[in-house]
């Protein structure tokens, strides 16, 4: 999953980005409104964490413009907690609204819920064949036994599971599993796919030659 954080307070931005990366997300950052909108417009994100008070272009404006072209889930982050601010946020097109200071675990849970909703999956727990994926706990079980996955491997599994039944192209995987800070090596993706297959079974991930991958 690839997340964009738009926040102008540098310590908060860096802290949040680090926390999300450690959770296994690919994270892009922007510290002003223009840069944030540019990135949101031009890249595919699974979710955007958007602060309201930004220099150059504020959160409301970004949201307004973005909604005309994309349905990316947006979680608004702000110090304004009046009901009318929440209403405005939600009505302008935000999918959730979190007030600072926030509890990190809660933020993570809300992000997960956002992403889950946007992929139309109602539950956190997926059973695919003998593999069980618990997205809340970020655990994967094979035949009941917990399996160790690296963050990237888990992200891959999670992404494919959320698109269960669909074919996911390599490009999509690149866009959603890697962030601007990663070097783009095609091979890396193959390595991850191969590792997951080793851990969860060779036919867990199905290759569609010329199209991409999928989980059935």
């Amino acid at each position, binding site marked *: 999953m690839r997340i964009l954080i738009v926040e102008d307070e540098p310590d908060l931005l860096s802290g949040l980005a680090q926390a999300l990366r450690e959770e296994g997300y690919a994270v892009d950052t922007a510290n002003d409104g223009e840069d944030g909108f540019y990135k949101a417009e031009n890249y595919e994100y699974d979710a955007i964490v958007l602060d309201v008070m930004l220099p150059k272009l504020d959160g409301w404006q970004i949201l307004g413009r973005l909604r005309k072209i994309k349905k990316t889930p947006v979680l608004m982050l702000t*110090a304004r907690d009046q009901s009318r601010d929440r209403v405005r946020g939600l009505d302008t097109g935000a999918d959730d609204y979190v007030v600072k*200071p926030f509890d990190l675990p809660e933020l993570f849970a809300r992000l997960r819920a956002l992403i889950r909703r946007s992929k139309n999956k109602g539950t956190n727990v997926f059973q695919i064949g003998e593999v069980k994926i618990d997205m809340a706990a970020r655990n994967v079980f094979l035949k009941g036994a917990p399996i160790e996955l690296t963050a990237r491997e888990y992200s891959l599994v999670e992404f494919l599971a959320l698109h269960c039944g669909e074919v996911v192209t390599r490009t999509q995987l690149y866009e959603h599993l890697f962030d601007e800070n990663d070097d783009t090596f095609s091979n890396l993706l193959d390595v991850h796919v191969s590792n997951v297959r080793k851990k969860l079974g060779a036919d867990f991930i199905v290759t569609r030659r010329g199209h991409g991958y999928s989980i059935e």
Partner: protein
Amino acid sequence: MNLFKSIKWRLQIWYGLILMVVLVALGYTACALQRNLLFNRVDGELQRRFSVLADALHPHPPGGGRRPFDGPPPDGMPDDFPPPDHEPGGFELPPQDEALFDPNEPHHFYFVILGRDGKEIGSSTNADAALNSKVSTEVLEQENAPPRIIPDRRSMPPSFYSNQGRVLARVLPSGETVWVGCSIVPELNALQNTMFWLVGAGMIILLFGLAGGWWISSRAIRPVENISATAVRISAGDLSQRINVAETESELGRLAAVLNSTFARLESAFAQQKQFASDAAHELRTPVSVILTQAQTALARERDAKDYRQTVEACQRAAQRMRKLISALLELARLDAGQEPLKRLSFDLGKTITECVELVRPLADERGIRMSADAAPLEITGDAEKLSLVVTNLLTNAIEYNHDGGEVKVATHREDNMAVLTVSDTGRGIPPEDLPRVFERFYRADRSRSSGNAGLGLAISKAIVSAHGGTIEVASEEHAGAVFTVRLPV
């Protein structure tokens, strides 16, 4: 409400009293006029009859000529003066004049004529009855002829009050006394009638008047009640209420307008306070958020010393921001409450400026900004510490919003009895829409927080300057720098 305190009732009582006085005066006048009219008429009748009797006593000599009582002759008394006496009872009223003394006529005119010796010469048929009725009578007299002795059997004590009869009595120059009298009972009845009607009408008018007055004073008072009801609603907490001025015009309209503007000021002051408190809390959220997120992230797994160090430094930065914010807020709160009376000591503003300039020089040097201070000695009275806060604030703003390599100029001079301080910079200036608001609390031209500035510096400066009785203003054009001018009483 106590009857005497209520304006409505007082108005009513006064109004009622005045109306009553007016009505009584009117009524009295009307009665008096009518009395005059009636009595004049009666007196005219009496006079007529008197002339008739006088004529009958001493008929005009045929062919004209003077009669003995027509007044003194131009050349002394005539030879046959005085004329011969009549005999007692010898007077007869000519028949054509009998109608004048008709006993059936309601006035009961009567006459009595006395000779020179006081003996009765003649009287009308009803004279005895009239005279014996012992009613009090008002006697009208001619100036130069006081009545003669009244015969015993006729007692007619004149009295002024409750007269029911009127008598005209005159002594003729020939010596006879002629009494002509009548009963004025018809007149008295008429007067009484009139008085009843007047009193009745007066009471009805008074009642209507009181009712009308009550209605008018109610209407006049209603706007006041309106105003007080609105004021009650406002003091109960709803500051958005206003008095409906359309209902209260004229003098009360002015009162309503003044009250409305007071309420508006109150409301805006409260709103400002609320806004201030909410902005203050708001400003603290982000630094707290930083600390929380950094701490939670750092504690999520094992870290090495370098990571912990970074986290702790970030927390420190946030905590410093909060510290500055808190002390700025406290300062503002103290200035607002006027708790600390300002120190009023004499000090050299020029020296203070020099010190502040030195204080911020490192900041300026970092950005290659030149600072020039024309700080001649200038004695003023005030709180040196607080005013140096103001100077420092203006200087740091001038540096912060400046371009690299720009310039900051500080100057002082005296104008009348004011010390004037100007701080100008060559920075990016202030856009016109922000210009009137720069001194507001938490107002930042660039609405984000990234500059680390909470937007309180100018607000505090303004509060300090105002507490000294001075003024602070700004002139600026976008992209063309800004000039802040502080005027302080010396």
